């Protein structure tokens, strides 16, 4: 677009600016609230400038937690969240890339049947199967454990499907050339398929990490001890009752902290992420 039309440009920018404000303003309010005292937040109108309690609030949530709500320190929750999100993301990638590899490159009985079985589970997210899954997890003694947080979410039909579609675009001749070169299936997988999937893995990692980090319903059910809370649950547990009984400055500080890791992952992986979505290196 090289045309110059001032009115259209103005309107376009106006819409964009309004959009940015609509997205950014709540974030700003959260940040401001996390830097002030309880009294300042509940006063009307609430101040919109950064206050003086930034360090106090963050120190308190990271080490001691809220006094009136859940008393677990948020530092521990962040570690729990990180373990859960990383395991879910990496586990999903590991399992789905291997199953996609099997489905695309090996001929075995009922291959298509299994693919469609995996595909059908796309329609069954955790929320749909939550009661039986809880029963299974509790029978296996997985309540209040990392395994319980991670395992039920670790298989991914979506990722399997995406990897399958990507593998199908890799020319067959590449596999044949590798066969003639003397590479066995796993050698082919590690030397050729895996490097070619790099950008796809990165893109999926970002998506799946955020998915794992934002898990709410399942961790809420399966964790009872404060030491196993994830940060998303922690926020929920801090909100104990009515407006006045919550330490909003601490809740907001926790919310800010919960926001940082996914944002960091997106920013750090952005280059790879975009590449994975738009580029096919063949």
């Amino acid at each position, binding site marked *: 677009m090289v045309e110059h039309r001032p009115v259209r440009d103005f309107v376009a920018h106006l819409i964009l600016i309004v959009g940015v404000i609509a997205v950014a303003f709540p974030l700003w309010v959260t940040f401001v609230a996390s830097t002030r005292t309880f009294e300042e937040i509940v006063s009307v109108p609430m101040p919109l400038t950064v206050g003086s309690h930034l360090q106090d609030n963050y120190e308190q949530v990271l080490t001691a937690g809220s006094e009136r709500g859940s008393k677990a320190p948020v530092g521990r929750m962040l570690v729990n969240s990180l373990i859960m999100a990383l395991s879910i993301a990496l586990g999903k990638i590991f399992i789905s890339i291997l199953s996609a590899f099997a489905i695309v490159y090996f001929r075995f009985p009922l291959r298509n049947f299994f693919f469609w079985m995996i595909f059908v589970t796309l329609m069954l997210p955790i929320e749909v199967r939550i009661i039986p899954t809880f029963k299974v997890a509790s029978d296996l003694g997985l309540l209040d454990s990392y395994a319980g947080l991670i395992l039920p979410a670790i298989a991914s039909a979506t990722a399997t499907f995406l990897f399958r579609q990507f593998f199908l675009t890799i*020319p067959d001749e590449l596999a044949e050339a*590798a*066969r003639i070169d003397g590479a066995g299936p796993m050698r082919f997988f590690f*030397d050729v398929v895996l490097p070619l999937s790099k950008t796809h893995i990165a893109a999926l990692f970002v998506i799946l990490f955020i998915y794992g980090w934002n898990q709410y319903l399942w961790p809420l059910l399966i964790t009872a001890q404060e030491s196993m809370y994830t940060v998303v649950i922690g926020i929920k547990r801090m909100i104990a009752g009515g407006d006045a009984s919550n330490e909003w400055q601490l809740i907001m500080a926790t919310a800010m902290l919960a926001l940082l890791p996914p944002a960091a992952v997106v920013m750090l992986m952005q280059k790879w992420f975009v590449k994975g979505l738009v580029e096919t*290196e063949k």
Partner: protein
Amino acid sequence: MAEIVLQGVTKSFGKTEVIHRTDVTIGDGEFVVMVGPSGCGKSTILRMIAGLETTTDGEIRIGGRRVNEVEPKDRNIAMVFQNYALYPHMSVYDNMAYGLKIRKFTKDDIDKRVQRAAGILELGPYLRRKPRELSGGQRQRVAMGRAIVREPAAFLFDEPLSNLDAKLRVQMRLEIQKLHRELATTSVYVTHDQVEAMTLANRMLVINAGTVEQIGAPLEVYDDPASLFVAGFIGSPSMNFMPGRRAGDGVDVGEGLVVPLPPALRATAGEQVTVGVRPEHFVPGTGGEGPRFRLRVDTVEALGADSLLHAGFNGTLLVVRIEGHATPLAGSSLEASILPGKAYFFDTVTGKRLAG
């Protein structure tokens, strides 16, 4: 270096037999081209030799060893694919070295072989590049380099030049010829391009619908086609066919033209005979010895060195090649005759060449 023998080889997918009983012996150091229209099964035969397809029946031997049950990597062959099949994430060097690395060659040995292949193929300056940074011709050379470094018993080429543009194709054709002269490795080359087949082959296999129609040196096949299919497929522009009926000691192809049958064929020729004449075997004007006939010139393609006349005769268009520029105008009429002894006679029903 090895001899490749196919003995009674067939291939079926389900119940359909796509390759019918094939017996071929490819001599040590020979360059054999399998040529045929797309879908004729030539690639399937090549892939059976490579071990990428199973053999339904019969035996394939490479260097005297039965390889039907042997994995591709252990057949001591190297293959060059139409779409190059280079590993996109590896440098040119690594692409060539990969097979050697897997075979646990020492680093020095790998380096020596890769450098040597790069020298032969003039890939030296590109060794650190990725395949996507190379042109089509260079990529094809890398694919050949990958084959050369292995020093295999045989090279298998699967339409290696089909993805290149016309000019590059000619150049690569010459390079493959040169390469074969230098390395003298047994080579099997699949193509649908009869020019490639003619220029590269020591011997060629003309394949049609899963059957080897003829095996022979290129000019032998050109001069002595065994069937209508071979005659029509080899040669460009292709041979003219004039279906006719037996009339005494000749074949009546219409418009009053009776092409005399050679004495040796008179006994065997049936009722329906097709006469084939190559475009260059017409004699324009009244100077020829054979029976004369009249052509209506429809279009003229002046190619410089020669001209192609598309001329109507008995309801079909014949292609006549005339040397030089002197061409009749489109729409004019031309008297011509067939060069004596250069007409081919085929049984219209079986498609086989009549033999005396």
